[in-house]
């Protein structure tokens, strides 16, 4: 277990949960990231009834995700095992591999209506059977891919 970072990962998880809770209690919205950017991409979607700023809140949320990550990295430049810092992060594989993965992530989360945040955090927290099935399927599939490709 040389890579296990229980403290920073639990604290980060609690923050993600708090972020999801704030959006739910404040605005009645699920913090599902694929859904949030999916709704502002073309083709234009039907704006939900009685909802203020259907585009603006989503853009602000996404921009804040970037700024939040940046501020955290300035305040805590070295966390986790071996002094993890944001600038040490690298994508894995050649550009074609990365492009294929990106396409599948976008396509799959749109067709399946959610990702790790929407199904994994908010969906499971509200006892959605649909989300439980989605989470089991995408975790199992991803684990099989990692085992088959030997990417780690």
């Amino acid at each position, binding site marked *: 277990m040389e890579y296990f970072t229980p403290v920073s990962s639990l604290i*980060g998880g609690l923050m993600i949960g708090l972020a999801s809770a704030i959006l739910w209690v404040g605005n009645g919205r699920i913090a599902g990231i694929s859904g949030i950017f999916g709704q502002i991409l073309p083709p234009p979607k039907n704006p939900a009834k009685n909802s203020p700023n259907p585009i603006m809140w989503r853009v602000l949320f996404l921009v804040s995700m970037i700024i*939040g990550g940046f501020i955290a990295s300035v305040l805590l430049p070295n966390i986790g095992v071996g002094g993890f810092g*944001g*600038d040490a*992060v690298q994508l*894995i594989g050649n550009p074609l591999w990365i492009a294929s993965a990106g*396409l599948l992530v976008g396509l799959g989360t749109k067709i*399946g209506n959610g990702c790790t945040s929407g199904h994994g955090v908010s969906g499971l927290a509200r006892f959605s059977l*649909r989300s439980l099935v989605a989470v089991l399927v995408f975790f199992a599939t991803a684990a099989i891919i990692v085992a088959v490709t030997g990417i780690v």
Partner: protein
Amino acid sequence: MSNSITHDNVTHDNVSSSVTNLAYLAVAVLSGGLFGAGLYISQMIDPLKVLRFLDFGAISQNGWDPSLALVIIGAIAVMMVSVLLTKSRSAPLFDKQFHLPALKQIDRPLIIGAVLFGIGWGMSGICPGPAITLVAFMPENLLIFLGLMFLGSFLGTYVQKWFANGDAIA
């Protein structure tokens, strides 16, 4: 002024609705900011760390990283409290209703979508949240991933329609 009462009412309504609007957007900023910070602190923006969780074959060799499980459990626990707290409420603080996904049944698009997402996630170690927050660090080839992820989401809209039409015919 003869129309002062009407005028005051209109002004008052505008002020209160714009304050609500501002609070609504402030919630989005606060939530997004915390979300991004949480992704950094939990190190879920590091693709290798995510893949080391998904690498269950490493359990027997003691090289497995269970960190992602703590991220998910911690996040679900806090979110669950807010779901239980709002159970008896009819509306959130700054909107007229809670927006729940309309879909309830376990259908083919859900499974096929989860499989496709799982393949992409297993190949890259990147899911949509980290893909966005990684913009703060701009690792090489991130824009390729983001561009294709957005394209996939766009194309997925038409696949969804195709599924919906097929089910209507069947």
